[in-house]
């Protein structure tokens, strides 16, 4: 634990939440820098060049989405958003502004640490985009092949593109808009029913129990998340 695993900037106005983040992230070996407000946070991101930023969306002085925007102007550093459950719209706004993922308040440390690990790993070595294991299923994006225990599963080109788009952000949430734009094109950005229909097909083909998906996870009102075996 002596060696730090990276620096994390916490932009959060509540001192008690900062304290608990500091102790739990610090306990895991991360170095923690704290900003009590949005303006300051956007500046600290430039000053300290952290490996990851955690931004609370409910800051008093500056909208958290604006903080994300300012950081994204110059840096691709991973950004995690903290927000309340009923704030789906601001979650989407934050993700569209460039945040990588979110945790919903109130959260346990376990959940937060898992998100931090995924985001850091992703920044350090982006998914190769070659092959992926989902339980018994193996996806080979180069050969455009999906197999279950060696037997081929037939996937349509659209289904493959959908999986590839999710796999690019492995373990992290991808918004409906993002998926529709990348898979079907910008003119289909509002066609959510496409996603519903294709996700159902994909789950039926890939998930052992499509009603209780373990890999193609729904983030209601926001988007989808692909979880592979190791994530």
């Amino acid at each position: 634990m002596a060696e730090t695993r990276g620096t994390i900037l916490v932009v959060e106005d509540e001192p008690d939440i900062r304290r608990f983040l500091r102790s739990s992230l610090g306990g895991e070996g991360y170095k923690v820098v704290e900003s009590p407000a949005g303006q300051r946070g956007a500046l600290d991101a430039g000053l300290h060049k952290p490996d990851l930023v955690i931004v609370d969306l409910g800051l008093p002085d500056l909208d958290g989405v604006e903080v994300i925007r300012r950081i994204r102007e110059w840096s691709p550093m991973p950004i995690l958003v903290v927000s309340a459950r009923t704030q789906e719209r601001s979650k989407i706004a934050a993700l569209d502004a460039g945040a990588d993922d979110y945790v919903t308040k109130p959260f346990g440390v376990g959940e937060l640490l898992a998100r931090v690990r995924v985001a850091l790993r992703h920044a350090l070595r982006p998914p190769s985009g070659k092959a992926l294991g989902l339980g018994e299923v193996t996806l080979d994006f180069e050969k455009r092949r999906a197999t279950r225990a060696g037997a081929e599963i037939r996937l349509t080109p659209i289904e493959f593109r959908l999986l590839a788009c999710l796999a690019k952000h492995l373990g992290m949430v991808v918004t409906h808009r993002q998926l529709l734009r990348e898979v079907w094109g910008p003119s289909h950005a509002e066609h959510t029913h496409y996603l519903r229909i294709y996700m159902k097909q994909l789950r039926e083909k890939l998930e052992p129990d499509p009603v209780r998906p373990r890999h193609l996870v729904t983030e209601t009102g926001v988007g989808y998340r692909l979880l592979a075996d190791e994530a």
Partner: protein
Amino acid sequence: MSWPGYRWVGYGGAAAATVAATLIGLGMRAHFELVNIAMVYLLAVVAVALRFTRAPTILTSVLSVAAFDYFFVPPSGAFSVEDPQYLVTFAMMLGVGLIISQLTSSVRARAHAQARLALEAETERIRNALLSSISHDLRTPLAVICGASSSLAARQTLDPDERSALAQSIFDHARDMSELLAKVLEMTRLQSGSIALQRDWASLGELLGAVLRRLRERLATHMVMIELPDDLPLVRVDSVLIEQVLANLLENAAKHTPPRTLIRVRAQAAGDAMTVSVEDFGPGLPDGDLDQLFGKFERGGGSHRGGMGLGLAICRAIVRLHGGTIRAERLPGRGTAFNFTLPLEPVPAIAAADCAVQSG
């Protein structure tokens, strides 16, 4: 009484009532004295007063006097009057008409005031019940949190097992409190009418999957069976809110039935609605009006766990916002079903070209 055209409807009503009274009067003329015909006009004034505001009522009085004079008082067919005693009749008719309009409008104002008072009293009653209910349901977790955390802080000699048990109970109760608070806030938002539905195409199966994932710890004690037809259509709903309905119903079922009880979720589309049922095969509900369950502070009988039944009130508010209905039903044998409906809309087709989109 608020829309701009209403005033004109009132005046139209005044004219129509006068015409009707005149026609009736003309029919009666051969057999009745003129004073009886005057009574018919007063009846018209009362009718207008009951239905409309003051101004149309006064107009009816004036029109009635004019029509009575013109059609009935000799010489008929003219506004002149032979016998001056009819001037008294006119004054009486006008006077009675004005008094009636005054009386009805003040009676109506009083009725409004009373309804408003009753509503305020009801709101106050609900607020008090809500406060006492919340404070009751918050007291236990708060007591646990204070006790456990102070004991963690004060006693350095606790063995690791004890420490983690205390920490876990703090976490559990804090989470309960946070969910209770979320429910209270949601109910407030729903009631204030400040929620605009974010309708979008959603798949019920997918929403259920998300709920089962979110509630996996709380439902771990029960067996949940999902039976959805393969061709269940998509619905255009606010996914976050409908997920909340499913979560509340499932949580309720788990909370009010013994461990290992079977909970079954089914759905079917028929005509222009989808019906979703969450059934449990537990001990069933006690006798009584099932609709009351959806009132704000009802709990199913026999439960000592928190949750004060806000959940069902929230379900009802959400389902109604979507144009659906929700009701509870005693299952034959034992157990309870909660059924709710959601209106169906035709799902737009996926253009064939989109399926064959260039690969790459």
